[in-house]
């Protein structure tokens, strides 16, 4: 440890030069790039990720290969089950990431004092949220691209015909579910509780997204309820874009309202320790 003093020497020389202080600095962008890279690396090291990422691809392969779901059927107006199943699959992965992955990361960061440690640096804790959001967005985009590629090449499922509408619905669905995940992290007292609430919330939400009753199979009553749930609205908005029309305004509004209202409540309730 003998060279220690030299480092600190250099430290003292540079630490009080005003030129090094860019204005007030320390805005939300401070550390964002490094934090995002860091969170991304940590996520890649999580063995749970491979599991989450492989489920949707596996589902596409299974439902694309099975005769009952991979061949044309009158129930689907002469089309196939698989043709209506990509939006439920995509929303399901979004649900898994927001309700399980995000909530357990944030809860463990809080329990282990990682958020508190960040709070005594010039970084704003909100920057970590943005980094988490970017990491989730990147991984979800990747898995969705893989799902669409496998479905397209192996089973001739077409691309969404209204591509911009699809991207919009996809993005809004992610941010609205991200808000829900934040709210759960905010109200849950422990990491285990957060994971429990996330899992309990997961099943009704993916049910409303049509995981069990995709496209035309969904009864009208359930569809009405589904219109007002984040994964349901997201799934239906994506399906419309797949069929070639712009998503219904109702669904986009529902997603935006979830994002703003739930996100606002979560930001009020969130505790850093």
């Amino acid at each position, binding site marked *: *440890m003998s060279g220690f003093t030299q*480092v600190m020497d250099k430290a003292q020389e540079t630490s009080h030069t005003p030129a090094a202080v860019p204005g007030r*600095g320390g805005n939300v962008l401070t*550390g964002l790039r490094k934090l995002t890279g860091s969170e991304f*690396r940590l996520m890649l090291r999580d063995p749970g990720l491979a599991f989450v990422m492989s489920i949707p691809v596996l589902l596409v392969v299974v439902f694309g290969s099975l005769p009952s779901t991979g061949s044309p059927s009158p129930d689907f107006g002469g089309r196939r089950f698989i043709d209506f199943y990509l939006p439920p699959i995509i929303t399901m992965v979004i649900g898994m990431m927001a309700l399980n992955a995000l909530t357990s990361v944030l809860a463990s960061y809080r329990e282990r004092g990682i958020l508190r440690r960040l709070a*005594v640096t010039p970084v704003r804790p909100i920057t970590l949220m943005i980094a988490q959001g970017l990491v989730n967005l990147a991984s979800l985009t990747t898995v969705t691209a893989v799902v669409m590629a496998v479905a397209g090449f192996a089973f001739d499922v077409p691309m969404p015909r209204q591509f911009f509408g699809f991207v919009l619905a996809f993005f809004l669905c992610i941010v609205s579910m991200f808000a829900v995940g934040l709210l759960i992290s905010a109200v849950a007292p422990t990491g285990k509780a957060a994971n429990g609430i996330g899992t309990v919330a997961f099943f009704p939400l993916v049910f409303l997204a049509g995981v069990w009753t995709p496209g035309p199979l969904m009864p009208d009553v359930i569809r009405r309820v589904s219109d007002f749930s984040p994964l349901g609205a997201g799934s239906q908005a994506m399906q419309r874009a797949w069929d070639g029309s712009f998503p219904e305004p109702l669904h986009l509004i529902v997603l935006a309202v979830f994002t703003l209202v739930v996100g606002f409540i979560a930001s009020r309730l969130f505790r850093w320790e």
Partner: protein
Amino acid sequence: MAVIEVANLHKRYGDHVAVDDVSFTVERGEIFGILGPNGAGKTTTVECVEGLRTPDSGSISVLGFDPRKDGLEVRRRVGVQLQKSELPEKMQVAEAMELYSSFYPNPADGGKLLDDLGLTSKRRTPFKKLSGGQQQRLAIALALVGNPEIAFLDELTTGLDPQARRDTWQLVEQIRDRGVTVVLVTHFMEEAERLCDRLALVDAGRVVALDTPAGLVSRVDGGLRLRFRASIQFDDRILTDLPEVTEVAHTTSQTVVTGHGNLLQAVSTTLAGRNVVPLDLRVEQTNLEDAFVALTGRRLAEES
């Protein structure tokens, strides 16, 4: 020149008063200790100074800034090691340094810091695979990576083995020697006595005394203690009659004489006159522990 000024700090959690009335100033370049038993309000006090908590009343100034109003200005200039804080389990040592150095406008050389803290061979080791001492050294490295003017170290050596503790003390002195002001929170008397230029004794949310370690010890009456095994039995009164002696006590095997002035000579002369030989004679100075007991009527934490 004072770099930290705290006046009449008060903080309560519900009915529990954590900090009742705390005032102190920290001068630039010193190691300032906050010493007290667990639950005395030490951590709450420094967390208010760091801006992590909002005091109920009182004023705080850190390098001329209010930690609540100008928190960012404070956080850019101080480095903090928190009592209970970890890193993500799979984050590697070098990654943590790189990440935290990106938060500051003028970071220190992270690689060099790791080198000086003996962590270079652990650069690629994930946080959860580090030993307690290594995690603690990494916490120090992270507290210094922003080139702070003030470093806050909270229960720095808790859980470390004696050798690691002494190494860490040396490190803290090196930090101070380069002009970084150090605020050290501890419940180890030995640590405070060895490191601190000045220290505040805190008990039940109040500063009971604020002085140099030597100054605190000198406040205690009866600066000396003799321990010995008497060769033959003797009457305590031959010692209690001496003006230098304040108390004579017995443990199972030893006689303990407390007093002041020329205690050693008075006692040995008297004993020699009665043909009593004091075997295994030891002279003990009063220390901070005694000062704490004298000032509060309570003991510090059980030493580990």
